């Protein structure tokens, strides 16, 4: 039933596979092009771009499993491959540093901030789209503007606010400030989803005596689960990615998040740190890449939803 009721916002499947009739034009006219020409104009540039886009990850992964002597001797060993991979760097990372703790901090902050933001955004988005209280349009516009305020002009005053509230160097400093980045985005995204739910459904429920709260939890939310997933994973990614607030508001080693900890705790001018540094970057990216692999379509939908009006 949900499929028929909700025309997909940006139809992420279509963006990924191009299976809709509108996207199939290439199939319709591509017979006009011969293979050699396609090789030069299509496959060659595409593979160069893909190579450049993926090379840093290959390099990251390779460095993480190379033995130290091979990392630093480029003349005797071919730098592009290794025949004796080692898990020494990853082992060292996981058992001799605070890395698991940092991962846990990042996870805790990301999940709490995301959950808080989604709850606030669902309520706000529903109220703006469906309650249409006085001035709802203006509030919607203001939220879009809030989306355009970048963290790098806010971190200085926020640092003093965080200090005043006594949150400095606690996870709450991040859990409470990240929603300012996430709420505008997810409210905007969810407003788009809520608009696609037929109003008649809500009218029926109102006539049957449902309260607004019941309508929200029993009708609107179940129908917007794809939107909620998109908002959730995108917010989670943004939290995991956030750097400047975490850098400014946290000071003790045990409280840091992965990005900040890697930059501050691993960089001490020691050239033998490269292996563990890359291992740290690799392990820190994996949770997001795995999440991404499972929810590609939702990511695309969140991204395209974000730039849609």
């Amino acid at each position: 039933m949900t499929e028929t009721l909700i025309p997909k916002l940006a139809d992420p499947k279509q963006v990924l596979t191009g299976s809709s009739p509108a996207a199939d034009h290439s199939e319709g006219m591509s017979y006009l092009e011969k293979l050699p020409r396609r090789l030069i104009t299509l496959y060659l540039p595409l593979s160069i771009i893909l190579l450049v886009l993926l090379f840093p990850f290959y390099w990251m992964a390779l460095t993480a499993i190379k033995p130290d002597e091979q990392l630093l001797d480029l003349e005797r060993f071919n730098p592009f491959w290794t025949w004796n991979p080692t898990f020494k760097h990853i082992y060292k990372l996981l058992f001799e540093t605070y890395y698991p703790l940092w991962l846990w901090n990042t996870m805790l902050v990301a999940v709490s901030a995301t959950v808080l933001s989604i709850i606030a955004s669902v309520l706000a988005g529903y109220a703006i789209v469906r309650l249409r209280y006085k001035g709802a349009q203006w509030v919607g516009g203001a939220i879009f503007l809030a989306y355009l305020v970048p963290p790098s002009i806010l971190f200085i005053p926020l640092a003093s606010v965080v200090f005043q509230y006594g949150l400095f160097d606690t996870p709450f400093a991040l859990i409470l400030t990240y929603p300012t980045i996430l709420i505008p985005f997810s409210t905007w995204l969810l407003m788009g989803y809520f608009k696609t739910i037929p109003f008649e459904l809500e009218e029926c429920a109102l006539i049957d005596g449902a309260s607004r709260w019941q309508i929200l939890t029993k009708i609107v939310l179940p129908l917007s689960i794809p939107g909620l997933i998109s908002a959730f994973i995108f917010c989670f990614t943004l939290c995991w990615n956030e750097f400047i607030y975490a850098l400014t508001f946290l000071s003790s080693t045990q409280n840091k998040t992965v990005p900040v900890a890697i930059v501050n705790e691993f960089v001490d001018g020691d050239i033998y740190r490269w292996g563990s540094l890359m291992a740290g970057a690799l392990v820190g990216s994996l949770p997001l890449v795995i999440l991404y692999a499972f929810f590609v379509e939702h990511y695309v939908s969140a991204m395209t939803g974000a730039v849609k009006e």
Partner: protein
Amino acid sequence: MTDVAVNSARPSPRSITAWQKLKTNRDWLGFWFMLPAAAFLILFLAYPLGLGVWLSFTDAKIGRSGVFIGVENYEWLWGDSVFWLSVFNTLLYTSVASAVKFAVGLYLALLLNENLPFKAMLRAIVLIPFIVPTVLSAIAFWWIYDAQFSIISWSLRHLGLISGNIDFLGDIWHARWAVIFANIWRGVPFVAITLLAGLQTVSPSLYEAATIDGANRWQIFRYVTYPLLTPIIAVVMTFSVLFTFTDFQLIWVLTRGGPVNATQLMATLSYQRAILGGQLGEGAAISTAMIPFLLAAILISWFGLQRRKWQQGESND
């Protein structure tokens, strides 16, 4: 008897409790629904934004709330060559990176829109640089740009193109191009995938009609695809310019603003002065000075690129 029935079924206005009012009046209900989001945004966004502007007019330092000193911070910045260098760097960084991101992103979107084998997988792979946290991929770039062990220097040396290693992050212009390249690398997937979503809304019959009329590939792109794409380009580029202009992470990981402030952006400079140097007021003044640039960037990309809605088949407004 009838009175009682009527009364119980329909309570008189006076007996409406506050709770019932709250449940039915949409303005009140709207207020309660908005409360959590509004609380966050006012406490941690609107208030700090105002506070930042106020701080820029004070001589606040870390651990000491300042007193009002008028525009002294701005006067000091006006005569500060490092500040002007950071403005120049920021403008260079933003304009070059955004222009290339747009060109490569659009090109990649057009390529991905073709009929390809493993289409879905290719498109999913393209997005990976966008998913991986910027700091972590910046660290990979840091290693790639290493002065001694750079793989780029190694490859070029073995191809016989250069004789010595390139000092990517130690030389002024090398460092600038290096951070710009890393920023482009990070931003292209976002531009490409969002523009691809826009490309797929273009009806194939338009391409067929243009082909029958004898248009070549460039003409099809210039007179069919591009005009239909301008609204989404405007939005995507607004975001892209905004986030490039305020970039902090990439620079901080790769160069921390060095060598000799050659890659110092306004964001990194304000961090250095305010948090590391303790001069909150001065740092806040640098942040506040970014606002007019941001507004200008938003307005230019928004109004400059946005076309009227009739091009999308909607009524004009």
